[in-house]
């Protein structure tokens, strides 16, 4: 199962939203964004379900609202509007943080809130996003 199929499987409200969207290309746009995430994850050897979960947590991949940056990436106070670059920087940062922090929840907390690995303020975010990643992985039939 692809990452896009996994998203559609674990979020039953997603497919009706894409079908009902005013933009007729909403589904194609969603698939394109997920493909960018998968490519960025492969480039930086990060599980695609983790990068996918982070981008979903940040922006819902733009299905409901416009976003400033696909994966919530900001450099020098400026949000990275280019989808390819946003996914690439997110995957690269996650790879780096996982090496530093040892576990995904601790790395995700730092990704969102900065500070030390497992920043207490970000652990709720880290655990929830890691939970989403786990559900995506199980839907894809890969180990979380």
């Amino acid at each position, binding site marked *: 199962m692809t990452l896009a199929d996994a998203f559609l499987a674990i979020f039953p409200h997603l497919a009706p939203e894409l079908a009902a969207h005013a933009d007729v290309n909403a589904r194609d746009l969603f698939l394109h964004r997920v493909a960018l995430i998968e490519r960025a994850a492969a480039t930086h050897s990060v599980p695609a379900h983790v990068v996918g979960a982070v981008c979903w947590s940040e922006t*819902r991949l733009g299905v409901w609202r*416009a976003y*400033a*940056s696909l994966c919530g990436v*900001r450099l020098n106070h400026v*949000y990275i*509007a280019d989808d390819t670059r946003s996914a690439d*920087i997110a995957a690269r940062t996650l790879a780096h943080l996982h090496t530093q922090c040892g576990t995904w929840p601790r790395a995700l907390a730092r990704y969102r809130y900065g500070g030390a690995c497992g920043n207490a303020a970000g652990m709720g975010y880290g655990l929830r996003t890691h939970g989403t990643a786990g559900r995506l992985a199980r839907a894809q039939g890969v180990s979380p």
Partner: protein
Amino acid sequence: MAVNVQPLRASQPTAVLTVDTRESFALLHVGLSLTESANRALTEAFAHAVERSPSWCYVVFGGAPALRIEPPRDSTVPVALRPREVATVASVSATLVEETLRAHGFDVRIVSRAHEVRA
């Protein structure tokens, strides 16, 4: 028969506010024991927050009590400025909820403040 009656301790109820700010939306969770008085306080607190930002802020039904903050679909705020605006509205809503709960005698603890992501 002697009965050892322990006096009830009038402890202050506690509420835990978690502000979870993402790139394009924010969630404000309130953790508290839902007694009748807590329910009234929470309803009032959420009403204040929604009244302050009616098109950005709404109550999430189902699950733990929460507010969701996101730009309206027809928002005129430029896309690049929306994350900051979301964080600002989340912060203001959290303050309103905190103040209302405190006025109702709650000991309010804030787990996390609105924060913008960086990479």
